[in-house]
């Protein structure tokens, strides 16, 4: 029988599950989110009770970034990474010949890279209510990285960032952030009266600043992949 471990989808529970498995020297066949688990004839589900895990912050942050990655099987990557971490300590991060280490570092790079891109590509629109509102659809779940960035930057504004794929809203109101699961329709998206003028002005700038003699669509697309265009207002009209 294949032993499959279920967790509630939170990072905390995943970490706890992995920790218990390693301590008890259990090798899981798979670790999956409880609600995604489909019963079959060959597997038997188990669950570990919630609890705290003490972990060096460097390795914990690495695990967290893997947890946010859009990668099937990331739970096992974390499991094998921590297994080797127990054995070798923090220097394990230099052992790229281990597949789990190499993969872990790649996933992190990918996640942080996308988070960084989003800090630039996110576009806010001003709503009638005064809120600034941005919606995006990142491949990885990077909204957590945006939270601290925009909290610092737009300290005195009220704003909402909405992840279309995960139906997750980050709401910043009067100096505090809240994560809320909701659908896009729950948000009243009437734009403020000036919104069109400002975004039109931006499009004028965007068009003007390019040097015609140097045009290079491949280069542009390489840095600003097409999958993001939908929400980048100056690219909205391009297809």
């Amino acid at each position, binding site marked *: 029988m294949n032993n499959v471990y279920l967790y509630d989808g939170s990072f905390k529970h995943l970490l706890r599950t992995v920790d218990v498995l390693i301590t008890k020297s259990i090798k899981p066949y798979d670790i999956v989110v409880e609600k995604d688990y489909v019963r079959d004839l060959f597997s038997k589900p188990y669950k570990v009770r919630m609890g705290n895990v003490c972990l060096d912050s460097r390795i914990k942050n690495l695990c967290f970034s893997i947890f946010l990655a859009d990668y099937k099987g990331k739970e096992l990557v974390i499991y094998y990474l921590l297994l080797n971490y127990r054995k070798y300590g923090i220097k394990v991060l230099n052992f790229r*010949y281990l597949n789990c280490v190499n993969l872990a570092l790649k996933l992190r790079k990918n996640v942080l890279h996308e988070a960084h891109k989003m*800090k630039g590509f996110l576009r806010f629109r001003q709503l009638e209510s005064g809120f600034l509102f941005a919606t995006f659809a990142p491949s990885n779940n990077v909204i957590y990285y945006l939270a601290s960035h925009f909290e610092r930057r737009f300290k005195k504004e009220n704003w909402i960032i909405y992840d279309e794929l995960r139906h997750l809203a980050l709401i910043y109101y009067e100096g505090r952030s809240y994560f809320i699961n909701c659908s896009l329709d729950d948000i009243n998206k009437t734009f403020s009266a000036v919104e069109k003028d400002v975004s039109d002005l931006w499009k004028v*700038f965007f068009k003007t*600043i390019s040097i015609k003699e140097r045009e290079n669509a491949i280069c542009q697309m390489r840095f600003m992949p097409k999958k993001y265009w939908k929400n980048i207002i100056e690219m909205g009209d391009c297809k």
Partner: protein
Amino acid sequence: MNIKEKLAILADAAKYDASCSSSGSQRKNTNGIGNAYRSGICHSFSADGRCISLLKILLTNSCIYDCKYCPNRRSNDVKRSMFSAKEICEITLNFYRRNYIEGLFLSSGIIKDPDYTMEKLIEVISMLRHDYHFNGYIHCKAILGSSSYLIKKLGLLVDRLSCNVEMPSSNSLKLLAPDKSKENILNVMGSIKENVSPFFAPSGQSTQVIIGASMDSDYQIMKQSESLYKKFNLKRVFYSAYVGVNKDALLPSLKFVPLKREHRLYQADFLLRYYHYKVDDLLSVKTPNFNVLLDPKANWAINHLDIFPMEINKASYDDLLRIPGVGVKSAKRIVKMRLYYRLGMEDLKKIGVVIKRAKYFILCDGKYFLDHSYFNKNFIMANLILEDKDKADSFQQLSLFCNE
């Protein structure tokens, strides 16, 4: 004139300035809006593939000078316009709040006299900082020939203050920008350098050279950059391929923009700043220009085959950096990882070494990847050129543009 038309004129007039970075400052958001982000952020990419990070505009495109290469020169018959301080503040804030930009890049044509222009710039920036409580990134141009107390005043308000050297030699400057002098430019750069501190242009200064409007060689251009880096602690020298905007007997009539050349200069600039090369390693009076077909690093390696192939598990960090296909990051990783185990070909791939370039130049545990008889100049060169061509045609310059 409405604000759209104004912006179109004054952004168009600023677009030839290549500087785009927004990095190096750690300005905090003190009770207002905005902050600087240490490593810089690109917010968009224009159709020419260049990063847009700052609202890049001129205060005015009117100018009393007549630099031959400049679209705003006095003798050109173009529409002129000027922003008010309030207009600039409003646009900046409106764009910034929507996360279109990382901040403002402000330069100006010279009106009346340098000091007057400088005071106007200071008025804008100071309104933006104090009345609008804007703490985002600001890059401002220091006006040539303005008094040093004004430079000091402006530097305290901005994240970066810079002054363009424009030309690779004083002769070309005399010829093409008769109103400017090299001495003047170096003076401004010198006084910025003296003042740079966490409170004065904390992200330092950069400069720009126009490529292909004068007869100067790559050697002259790079020599100038080398000495600028040394003398003024510059963060960056930007190279801007000349786009034939003006007709003038003194200007070359370019059929195309010398993008390839610009690209080679950026690559060489990287080698100076991060790879410990000297200009004299790369070029000389005898070969004063870069090989268009091959990047400067590969070109150097080809001409120094005697130190290759190099053993990855032994070579010093500095030597590793000389291997084509090995970058700063991968060299650092190699040094760190080989403390624990001996590296083979597979490991190099994982680290991020570009194997198809490096393979001609390295040994892994004494093993060479190709037949030894292929270790000769012609074979390697031919292969590298082929590979370089495929890549360069489509992507051109820009990976080197934004980061510092």
